[in-house]
């Protein structure tokens, strides 16, 4: 088969699997698990084949026009360069791991068939985004991901948190998608094509008429999808969904779509220096803010969610300094270790019966209950904190190196201000990342107190996947940084000495300071008993998680934080702790700015409808009602009256007829 056929099969197979799963879910439950896992695995194999055949050489392009549209043509187009080939492999790996993990995680879940089908559909949409060479086809995948995310975040729809989170995720991403769509049309209007290769040609030769406007409109959609400030608020709340969904959607694929989109169209963004500075500022605020917020979260998955936002900030930062190789390198390594972190967190939540770090810090021997999750999570946290030689170190250093390169004014692609913003925020975030990674590890695995409950071994499907993902988290960065430039733009991705020393030094300081703070505060833990666990700890993993999500707010008073004096983050953040736990009250600001006005407008419309429009309608009905009342009085019930009236009418009609006939 040709490379084009193989590449076309990659997104089609999970799509067919999703359809078959939805159709057969009720009638043939035995087929659901193979239908969920096999198409995804096959498309992973095909994606690897495509990557091998493409091999980082010239991009594979194929296009077929289904029907003429009248103006700008829309084509089913493939555009597979080194970025697309490798990101598709990442999506395939993570999606396969998540599907296998879900078999164990949602073993007893009655809605597993629809869940697995939606995950397959989601995978297919992401692969479509990755391979598509036409922006409208890309947009189709982009929106399918949005709706799948809505359904999957709301998987535990019995809990109010999940319902609210799914609607929030959908609305906030749509808030970015509307400008995104307008931006796509503006881009096509300027360049006369939706096809990526033609757009890039047009930008390279003629430039754009409105580069800043287009770039900012597209950035809004990217900020929504990739959870960048100020549209990031949906991502922490989306942790109300099942853990494998968090791993797939909110760590490795959907949020990566925005970064990947900028990487594909980087010349369009680079055409406007203002857009690049906005992108850099967005990345800087996102990185630093999410690092502080992650340090204060109590829910283990919300820590990881904020960490995802921060790492995505690194990627957009790399794009702001016009180095898409570094951005996609970090996307690849982050996809591996963040998926691993989430999946391991799912195992831990199942074992501990709670998602609260405060409760875990009061459990002894939790790490002995889940040795696989303990070791793999340690690897992934070290990768997250960018400690050499784990993969996160190399990818993060390539980002910081690119920023340093730009800030010293060695390049004309990006403004030096963007370089400084990204570099400083990146270094600060390196410190914060190490701090919250250390806090997470210490609270979860070094707890003291009553022993953690023992439910026996975790299912094999859940633990094997962790080790599969631990391999790239451990080794990919070191092995890949020499090979990847051949696949990407050819720019060097090797870590530079200055940023490596600075970044690693800051990370070590962050870890050590957190350890010292934890040593200081952990003595309080015994004095303040905390810790509510799920009502059915012996149940399936998904049931335990749903109960943990629903129980966090009643048990600890807040969905994000817990009143725990033994938390080292209280000592580290001081007065910042409360706003950081609440995400710097951005939700409250949005409530005032958007939710309240919309609600007020809705009540105004309701008033206008009920009181104004209805008044006219009722008034118009008054006259007929009066007439009806008057006519009703004639209905006396006496038949003789009726007959009299009939007779009188007949006589009148007869006289009239006679008069008319006689011509009088």
């Amino acid at each position: 088969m040709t490379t084009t056929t193989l590449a076309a099969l990659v997104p089609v197979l999970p799509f067919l699997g999703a359809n078959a799963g939805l159709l057969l879910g009720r009638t043939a439950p035995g087929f659901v698990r193979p239908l969920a896992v096999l198409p995804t695995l096959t498309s992973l194999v095909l994606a690897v084949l495509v990557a091998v055949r493409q091999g980082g050489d010239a991009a594979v392009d194929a296009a077929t026009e289904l029907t003429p549209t009248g103006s700008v043509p829309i084509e089913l187009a493939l555009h597979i360069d080194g970025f697309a080939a490798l990101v598709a492999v990442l999506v395939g790996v993570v999606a396969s791991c998540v599907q296998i993990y879900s078999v164990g995680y949602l073993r007893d879940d009655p809605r597993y068939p629809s869940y697995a089908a939606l995950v397959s559909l989601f995978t297919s949409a992401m692969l479509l985004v990755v391979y598509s060479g036409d922006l409208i086809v890309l947009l189709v995948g982009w929106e399918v991901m949005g709706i799948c995310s809505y359904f999957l975040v709301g998987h535990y729809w019995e809990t109010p948190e999940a319902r609210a989170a799914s609607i929030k995720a959908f609305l906030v991403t749509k808030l970015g998608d509307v400008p995104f769509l307008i931006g796509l049309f503006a881009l096509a209007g300027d360049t006369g094509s939706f096809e990526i290769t033609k757009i890039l040609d047009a930008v390279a030769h003629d430039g754009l008429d409105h580069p800043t406007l287009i770039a900012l409109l597209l950035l809004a959609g990217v900020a929504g999808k990739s959870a960048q400030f100020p549209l990031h608020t949906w991502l922490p709340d989306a942790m109300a969904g099942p853990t494998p969904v968090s791993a797939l959607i909110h760590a490795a694929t959907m949020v990566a779509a925005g970064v990947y989109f900028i990487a594909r169209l980087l010349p369009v963004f680079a055409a406007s220096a203002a857009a690049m500075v906005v992108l850099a500022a967005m990345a800087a605020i996102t990185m630093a803010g999410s690092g502080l917020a992650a340090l204060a979260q109590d829910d283990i998955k919300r820590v990881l969610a904020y960490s995802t936002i921060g790492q995505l900030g690194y990627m957009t930062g790399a794009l702001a300094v016009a180095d898409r190789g570094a951005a996609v390198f970090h996307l690849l390594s982050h996809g591996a270790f963040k998926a691993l972190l989430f999946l391991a967190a799912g195992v831990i939540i199942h074992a501990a019966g709670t998602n609260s770090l405060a409760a875990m810090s009061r459990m002894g021997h939790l790490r002995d209950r889940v040795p696989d999750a303990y070791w793999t999570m340690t690897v992934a946290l070290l990768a997250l904190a960018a400690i050499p030689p784990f993969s996160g170190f190399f990818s993060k250093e390539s980002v910081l190196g690119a920023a340093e390169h730009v800030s010293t004014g060695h390049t004309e692609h990006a403004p030096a201000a963007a370089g400084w913003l990204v570099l400083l925020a990146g270094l600060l975030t390196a410190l914060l990342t190490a701090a919250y990674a250390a806090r997470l590890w210490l609270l979860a695995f070094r707890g003291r107190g009553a022993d953690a409950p023992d439910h026996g071994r975790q299912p094999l499907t859940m633990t094997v996947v962790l080790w599969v993902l631990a391999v790239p988290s451990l080794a990919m960065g070191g092995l890949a940084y020499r090979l990847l430039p051949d696949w990407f733009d050819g720019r060097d991705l090797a870590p530079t000495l200055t940023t490596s020393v600075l970044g690693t030094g800051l990370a070590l300081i962050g870890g050590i300071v957190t350890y010292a703070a934890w040593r200081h505060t952990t003595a309080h833990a015994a004095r303040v008993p905390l810790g509510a666990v799920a009502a059915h700890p012996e149940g399936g993993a998904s049931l335990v998680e749903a109960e943990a999500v629903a129980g966090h707010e009643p048990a600890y008073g807040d969905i994000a934080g817990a009143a725990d004096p033994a938390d080292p983050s209280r000592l580290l953040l001081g007065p910042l702790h409360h706003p950081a736990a609440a995400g710097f009250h951005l939700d409250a600001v949005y409530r005032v700015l958007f939710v309240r006005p919309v609600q007020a407008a809705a009540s105004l419309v309701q008033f206008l409808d009920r009181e104004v429009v209805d008044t006219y309608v009722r008034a118009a009905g008054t006259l007929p009602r009066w007439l009806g009342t008057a006519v009703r009085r004639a209905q006396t019930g006496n038949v003789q009256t009726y007959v009299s009236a009939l007779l009188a009418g007949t006589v009148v009609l007869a006289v009239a007829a006679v008069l008319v006939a006689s011509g009088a």
Partner: protein
Amino acid sequence: MHLAYPAVLSALLFCTGVYGVLARRNAILVLMSVELMLNAVNLNLVAFDVWLSRTAEETLHSGQALTLFTVAIAAAEIGIGLAIVLAVYRNRGTSHIDKLRDTAEGHGPDDTDPSLPDSDALAAEQAEKAEAST
């Protein structure tokens, strides 16, 4: 005999019948008045038939045939009418038409208060709710 005599007689009979139908209280007398009206019509039919058959060369006497029909139908009608009057009398203890006013406005179990202006709107709202809930 001149046509005027039977015509005047039948007009008098019909008016008597109309008066009886409109003015009598007792249902049986009303029925008798109806019979008077019918027979006034019968008289007209026969008289005009005879008058027309004088000038016509050939006639089927359809007026007289129609009279026979009317008589037969009137017999059936009065049978049913009297049965109804009997049933009403057994149920209500009266056959006075003035007192049989069940169809009057504001009477009967399922009728709402006519003074309430919104009764129609309320009924419409209830119907909407029933639709929405199904």
